């Protein structure tokens, strides 16, 4: 007698077909679109977990940080996203103050959903959010000097007014001198 392996039964398969698993993760940074940060900078970004596309049930996304935990932190664990809604997951990126300019860190955060069937060869979905963080020099704008806030036109106008006053004074004095000399 032959042994027959039955990998998940017909009933399970039919139940699964009736269920639509919709899931998405949106990110402001990705593999061709790196984040730039300077040494010592701390920035918070959001991963947007979505459960739209005609979703009929809530989904649970399991968040884990796979790569880049030396600079990025996220509260790992399960997040429930209600049907036809979305949820922002904050990710904090901290660049060490002694990081060298030009250093490139890779961040990879996985969000996975399990199979709805709960048994059999379940097929879940997963989204890997991968992006690089490039260490750059702190820009002069961010260093913010007081002079950078002064509109240069005010400087020009002030200088012109001073010149005008000086010219007027000189002219009046010369007139007076020429009147007396007559």
């Amino acid at each position: 007698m032959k042994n027959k392996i039955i990998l998940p039964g017909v009933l399970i398969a039919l139940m699964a077909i009736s269920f639509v698993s919709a899931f998405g993760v949106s990110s402001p940074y990705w593999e061709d679109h790196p984040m730039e940060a300077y040494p010592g900078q701390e920035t918070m970004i959001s991963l947007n977990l979505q459960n739209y596309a005609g979703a009929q049930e809530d989904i649970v996304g399991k968040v884990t940080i796979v790569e880049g935990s030396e600079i990025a932190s996220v509260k790992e664990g399960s997040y429930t996203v209600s049907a036809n809604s979305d949820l922002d997951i904050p990710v904090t990126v901290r660049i060490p103050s002694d990081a060298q300019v030009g250093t490139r860190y890779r961040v990879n955060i996985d969000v996975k959903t399990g199979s709805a069937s709960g048994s059999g060869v379940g097929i879940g979905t997963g989204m890997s959010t991968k992006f690089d963080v490039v260490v750059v020099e702190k820009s002069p704008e961010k260093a913010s000097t007081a002079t950078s806030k002064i509109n240069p036109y005010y400087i020009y106008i002030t200088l012109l007014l001073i010149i005008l006053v000086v010219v007027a004074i000189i002219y009046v004095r010369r007139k007076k001198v020429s009147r007396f000399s007559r």
Partner: protein
Amino acid sequence: MTFYLVAAILVMGLALITLNYTTSRGITGFASSQPTNVSVTVSGTNPVNVYNISNLSVSSFNPTEDSVTQIIFYVSVNDSDGVSDINTTSVSANFTKVGEGLRYNSSCVYLANINAYSANFSCTIAMWYFDSSGVWNVSVSATDLGNLSFRQNLTTNFTFNQLKAMISTPNSLSFSVVPGTTNQSASNDPTVINNTGNFNGTVTITGLNLYGATDGTQKIDVANFTVNRTTGGECVSTSTPLVNGSATSIAQSTSNRGNRSLGGGVGQENFYYCMRAIPIVPSQAYTTGATSSWTISY
């Protein structure tokens, strides 16, 4: 420095001419007369100017899974001939990116006058889930009632974020196989992956070993399973074998970004599965367990 010198010379010259003219005038007894410049301003000769496009360059926007994201922004339009010379139904805007479809709003909504020369408008443009991630250029235009001149502002852009999203069906696979046999296809494949986001890239599958539902000490190694994106190709040597617990890129697979409503497989990818060699194991159901599953990922 040169600027200051030139400016100073000009100002000095003007000041001297003015002072000399006013002090040299005297009473002569004749009726005074002098040439007078007369200027006539015709309303509507000056073109409009589109400025201050708010809400865009400072932000990035998330696509919405399998739907549109309405991007709302505000523009100011002025006309030195007065606000009444702005054609308030002429303000339009569009988003462009190389290789992508035009996204536009041909009639931005007039909101209110800012002052006697400027007015505020609201524009809403829908971005689709399959629109490419990256920087999109913004163009806003308006026309003038007086001389019908057309002006564009092309100075703004914004970032449309990446969205990795999918709908996959079915959520489980079935095989009914006999130990010792080879090349058995799944009974309910393909797994259909609908790309409901804008990611373009390969698809990976993380497989897990299967364990007996009755006798949990028995297992089937996931390395026995192969995957292919075409039917009939799942049991050939070029199909991709799965690796336990490891995300494996499926050969030649693509997330196939696109408008799924076009049909013809746009925005879709199918996967077919095969058990290449069925091991000699006891007859029972083998599963990934109640809490685990294979994972299809981008």
